[in-house]
C-alpha cells in the first residue's frame, strides 16, 4: 500500500498494525514491562495503563488458517475469533501476560471459555458488560471495573490508586484528542491522508504502550504539516461497522476511487471521538459512565440505536461523505440487524448505503471491487445536501 507520508512515526504505526508483537511492545517487554490483551473496545484499558501494564487490543493479523481453533469453533462462527484463537493456540500471543474478554458477542465471548481450557496465560478474566445504557447498568459496570482493578492488583502485585487512574484517563484522553486531530485532517476536500493511512494510525494506538504512542502521534502530526493533499478520488465514503483492523480492506475500496474519509467502527472514531469525563470525583465512575453511556456504542447496546444513527449522521455531515459502506463480518447477528436499520435510516436521510459482508482475512477482492465500483457509480454527481439532513 503506497503512501506519500514521510514520517518515521508513521512507519512505526504501519509496523504495529501489520504485526502483533511489534517492536514497540518488544522494547516494552525488554524493559520489564507487561502486556495485557483485551478483546473489545469496551474493556477499560485505562485500568491497565494505571497498573503500569501495556494494553493490547486483540487482533488476528497475519493469520492464514484456523486449523487448530476448528476444534473449538464451528463453521457458523465468525472468522475473527476463529483466527484469533488459532493464533493463540499457535503461540502467537505468548507475549501476553494477561487476557481480558467480555461478553461482547456470541462468538468472541467464547474465546474466554476456550482460552482457559487450552492456554496457560498468567491472568485471564471475563467481564460482564451490560446490554443497556441506563443508570443501573452504569452502576453495574462501575462494580465490574472495581473488580477488574482488584484482580489486576492481585495478579500483578501492583496498586492502582485513584491518582494513577486519573493520570491514565488524562493520558488516554490526550491521545483521543490527538487522534481526533488526525481525523480532522480528513474533513478537507483533498485530505493529506487516506483511509488506509488513518487506519494504520489508529490500530497502532491499540498495540503500542500509550505514553509512547502519544509521543509518536505528536511527531506524526508535525510530520503531516507538509504532506500534499490526496486528489483523484471520485467520491468520499464513510465506513460503519465493527471489528475492522485490516487496512487492505480499505485499500481495495480506495483503489476503486472512493476515498474513505471517516468511520464509525470499533477500530475507528468510536474509540476516541468522545473523551472520558474528567469531572467526576471518582475515576471509576467516570470510566463506567464513559464505557456504558458517553462513548458511541455498538449494536449490542440495546436502546441506543437512535444515538448510534445520530453519531453516524454527525460523522457523515462533518466529513461530507457521498455514501456509507456498512461492513459486517459474516455470521454477525448484531451488525446484520443494525445494518438493516442503518439502510432504512440512511435511505430516509438521503444517504446511499452499501452493505458488504466479509471474512476477517480478506478474500474475494474481485467481488469487493466490483460492488464498490457499482456503488461509486451510483454516488457520482449526486451530492448530498447535508443542510437538509436532520
Amino acid at each position: 500500500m503506497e503512501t506519500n507520508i514521510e514520517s518515521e512515526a508513521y512507519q512505526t504505526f504501519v509496523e504495529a498494525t501489520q504485526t502483533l508483537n511489534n517492536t514497540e511492545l518488544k522494547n516494552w517487554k525488554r524493559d520489564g514491562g507487561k502486556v495485557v490483551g483485551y478483546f473489545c473496545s469496551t474493556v477499560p484499558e485505562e485500568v491497565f495503563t494505571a497498573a503500569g501494564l501495556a494494553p493490547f487490543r486483540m487482533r488476528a493479523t497475519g493469520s492464514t488458517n484456523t486449523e487448530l481453533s476448528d476444534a473449538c469453533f464451528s463453521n457458523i462462527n465468525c472468522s475473527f475469533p476463529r483466527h484469533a484463537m488459532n493464533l493463540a493456540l499457535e503461540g502467537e500471543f505468548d507475549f501476553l501476560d494477561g487476557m481480558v474478554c467480555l461478553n461482547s458477542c456470541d462468538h468472541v465471548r467464547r474465546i474466554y471459555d476456550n482460552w482457559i481450557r487450552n492456554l496457560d496465560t498468567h491472568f485471564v478474566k471475563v467481564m460482564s458488560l451490560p446490554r443497556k445504557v441506563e443508570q443501573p447498568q452504569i452502576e453495574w459496570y462501575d462494580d465490574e471495573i472495581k473488580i477488574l482493578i482488584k484482580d489486576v492488583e492481585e495478579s500483578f502485585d501492583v496498586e492502582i490508586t485513584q491518582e494513577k487512574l486519573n493520570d491514565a484517563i488524562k493520558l488516554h484522553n490526550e491521545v483521543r484528542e490527538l487522534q481526533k486531530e488526525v481525523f480532522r485532517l480528513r474533513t478537507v476536500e483533498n485530505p493529506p491522508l487516506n483511509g488506509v493511512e488513518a487506519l494504520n494510525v489508529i490500530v497502532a494506538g491499540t498495540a503500542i504502550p500509550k505514553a509512547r504512542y502519544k509521543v509518536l502521534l505528536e511527531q506524526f502530526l508535525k510530520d503531516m504539516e507538509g504532506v500534499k493533499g490526496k486528489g483523484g478520488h471520485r467520491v468520499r465514503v464513510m465506513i460503519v461497522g465493527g471489528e475492522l483492523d485490516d487496512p487492505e480492506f480499505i485499500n481495495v475500496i480506495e483503489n476503486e476511487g472512493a476515498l474513505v474519509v471517516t468511520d464509525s467502527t470499533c477500530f475507528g472514531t468510536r474509540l476516541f471521538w468522545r473523551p472520558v469525563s474528567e469531572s467526576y470525583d471518582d475515576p471509576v465512575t467516570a470510566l463506567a459512565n464513559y464505557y456504558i453511556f458517553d462513548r458511541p456504542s455498538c449494536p449490542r447496546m440495546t436502546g441506543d440505536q437512535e444515538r448510534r444513527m445520530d453519531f453516524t449522521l454527525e460523522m457523515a455531515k462533518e466529513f461530507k461523505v457521498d455514501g456509507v459502506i456498512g461492513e459486517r463480518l459474516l455470521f454477525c447477528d448484531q451488525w446484520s440487524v443494525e445494518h438493516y436499520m442503518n439502510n432504512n435510516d440512511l435511505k430516509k436521510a438521503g444517504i446511499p448505503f452499501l452493505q458488504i459482508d466479509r471474512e476477517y482475512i480478506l478474500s474475494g477482492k474481485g467481488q469487493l471491487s466490483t460492488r464498490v465500483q457499482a456503488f461509486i457509480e451510483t454516488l457520482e454527481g449526486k451530492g448530498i445536501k447535508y443542510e437538509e439532513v436532520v
Partner: protein
Amino acid sequence: MAAFDGYIKATHDFIQSMQGDNCTQTVHRDTVDELRASIPIKIGKGAMQGIIMRGNTFVELGNPLAGSTSHLLWTENCSLIQDGRITLIGPDIDTAEGQSLPFGQILMVGGEALKNQDHEQLQQINIIGDQIEGYMLRSSAENIWARVSRDVASREFTFETLGKAMIALIKSNRPDITSVEILFVTSGKKDVEELADSVSSAKSLGSDILKEAWKERGYDVDCDFDCSTCHDEEVCDDIRDTIVQIKQKERSENAAEEDIIATSNK
C-alpha cells in the same frame, strides 16, 4: 493443595458446635469388602434398578423447600480427614416415614496424590446414579435431593448404611482416595442453611480450580465422532503435535531472521 482445607476445618467446627442429643457418630475403618459385606443392600453399578416413584418413597431428603445443600471437599492432606467417620445431625431415616427432611451432605475425601486436575471428576463422586439400591438422587442440578424406597427402609437402611455404602463406592471407584468422612444434617432448614453458609465460597473456589485444570488438557482436531472409539486417534494426536511444532519452528526462525535484519540495520 490446601484450597479446601479451611472448609474441612469449618465443617469439623460445625460438627463440634452441633454435638448433643441429636448427633450420632460412627467410625468404620473396614476394608471395602468388609464394608460391602456389612450393608444390607446391594451397591455398585446397576444396583439401583428402575426409579423410585412417589408412591414407593419412604422418605424424601433435601427438597429445596425443606432445605438442601451438598459439597465435596478434597485434600491431599489425609490427616485432616477422620477416615470412616459418619456423622448424623438430626433424625434418621427409620424415624421419618412419609416425611420430607431437610438434607445437608458434606463429603470430605483425602488422597495424597489428588491434584487440581482431578477436581472436575471428583465432583462427580457426589452423583451416585444407580449405584445404591433403594436410594435415588433426583435429577436436580444444584442441590442434593434424594429418595429412599420403602423396600430398603424395611431392611434397616439408615444414614449409617448410606454412609458406609458411599465410603465403599468411593474407595473402590477411586483407589487414589484413601480417606473418606461424611456429614449428614437433617435437623432443620436453619441448620442446613448454616452448614451451607460455612462452605458457600467452596463452590466458587471450585470453579477457579476447574479453570486451572482445563488449561492443562490441550485441544484436539475436529471430527464428528468420539475419539475414544476412533482408530485414528493416535494419528490425529500426532498431526496436532506436528502442526504445533512446525508453527513454533517457523516462529523461532522468523524471530531469528528479524533479529538478523534488526542487527544488520544498526
